[in-house]
């Protein structure tokens, strides 16, 4: 059965330095609050796993929390580059970042194998792509037809962190809309932390695509309203598109980035304080004289 805890305690207790952490989401339900808490707690040497690393990973990488990134597409959705990620890869600032890079199909299959208790997955992928020279892909033959296919190793993160719309009082988690690979990340991980918008008496299954994670598949549930800001939680909040655009400017400049993190993350004691700081100064960049 999942336990209920504060986000602070969940991150402190379940995310040791050096852990392999998958914070999943496909631009919907991104666990920003959990990432900010890892920055506040100064986590170190993390291996970050995610199909689509975006602004929260940009922030964590920019603060030097990550030793390695396992991914398939890293960008600021609808805007462009992740400048902190690029600075780390292109200039080793603030620290070098090791990359383990796949295609979406490969990453999705790796998560599914992890959730299935298999050591690897088989798929049609990577044919002729230079990716095979830079990542762990093997070739495997069908024992019945002889056909050659690709094999990729399973993903079993130490900790999966996701944001969902609801949990009931028994800790069963309910989410809907675009749920990406979150279910596989949770089922494949050794432990899972789920932040939710709301604790309810009964999951409301507002669909489309209702997904339930039973309480016993989750280690800790933390109630963090708007825990996905600037991403969104269908039925609870809309995407703060202006923030993503603004992030392009903030993240281009090392000092401006550092000041933003200081003012809005390290300088706020929790997500509620972050939200009031953001709403008090929506134009973060100007507020910082950037």
């Amino acid at each position: 059965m999942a336990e209920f805890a504060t986000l602070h305690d969940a991150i402190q207790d379940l995310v040791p330095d050096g852990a392999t952490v998958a914070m999943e989401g496909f631009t919907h339900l991104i666990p920003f609050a959990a990432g900010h808490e890892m920055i506040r707690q100064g986590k170190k040497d993390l291996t970050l796993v995610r199909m689509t690393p975006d602004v929260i990973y940009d922030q964590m990488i920019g603060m030097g929390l990550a030793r390695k990134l396992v991914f398939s597409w890293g960008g600021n959705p609808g805007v462009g580059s992740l400048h902190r990620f690029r600075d780390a890869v292109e200039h080793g600032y603030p620290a070098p970042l090791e990359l383990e890079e796949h295609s979406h199909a490969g990453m999705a299959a790796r998560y599914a194998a992890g959730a299935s208790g298999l050591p690897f997955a088989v798929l049609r992928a990577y044919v002729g792509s230079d990716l095979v020279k830079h990542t762990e892909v093997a070739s495997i033959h069908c024992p019945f037809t002889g056909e050659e296919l690709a094999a990729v190793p399973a993903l079993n993160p130490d900790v999966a962190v996701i944001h969902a719309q609801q949990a009931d009082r028994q800790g069963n988690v309910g989410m809907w809309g675009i749920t990406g690979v979150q279910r596989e990340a949770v089922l494949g991980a050794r432990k899972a932390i789920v932040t939710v918008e709301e604790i309810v008496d009964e999951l409301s299954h507002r669909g489309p695509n209702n997904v339930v994670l039973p309480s016993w598949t989750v280690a800790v549930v933390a109630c963090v309203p708007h825990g996905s800001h600037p991403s969104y939680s269908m039925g609870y909040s809309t995407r703060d598109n202006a923030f993503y655009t603004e992030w392009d400017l903030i993240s281009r400049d090392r000092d401006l980035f550092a000041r933003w993190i200081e003012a809005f993350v390290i300088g706020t004691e929790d997500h509620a304080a972050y939200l009031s700081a953001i709403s008090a100064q929506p134009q973060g960049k100007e507020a910082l004289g950037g």
Partner: protein
Amino acid sequence: MVDLLSHDMTYTSDEMMTVTASRKLVDGQVCFVGIGLPSEAANLARLSHAPNVVLIYESGTIGTKPEILPLSIGDGELAERADLVVSVPEVFAYWLQAGRIDVGFLSAAQIDRFGNLNSTVVGCYEDPKVRLPGAGGAPEIVSSAGEVIVMLRHTERAFVPSVDFVTSVGFGRQGEGRAGHAGAGPTVVITDLGVLAPDPTTHELTLVATHPGVEVSEVLSHTGWDLLVADPVVITEPPTPEELGILRDLVARTKEAHSR
């Protein structure tokens, strides 16, 4: 219905590119759509001549009918207006890999003479000049879709003799072809200047059409290799008032919605 008089009949080269791309989609086709230019062109097709085109986004939305263009691959608009929403592992295994996609519709940072696509790095992988976002769904879309429509703006930086990194294989480094791939690969490349298609035998990209007012010399000067030119080169039909009207309404609706 669109009020034609309300629209300025001049148009931009991006509009010409989007309209040209949208015309390539056939009604009823199943199309795996990338975000950005491809998504704009695919939805223009759906709202004009191809009302029954099935749009699939890699975030898992199948039969997607957005009223406004998505800013991101995971916009709520996509989920709310889809026939069904599935997980990401499923969209790649049960839908793309299984061969249900007629047309893949995507963009890239670089394309070369043989239609190979790069969205990974400019420069070398270990010490890149520019680190790009990466593969995403592209390698398997280009491999598995029945055919692929590529859209990108025509610049010397984008059209290079040989891509720095083959993220998704078109016809191979030497134009060797499509062995090992289920699909036909990039059958057309649409830019803001014209239309390119691979030569049936050599697979080398060839200029087959220019947009109205664009000189062949202009296309050549924006291409990083000696681009083959078909004879004759067709001139693209300009956007019709209806196409322009629908596109501009879509873009205006989108701007309005995202500025809220």
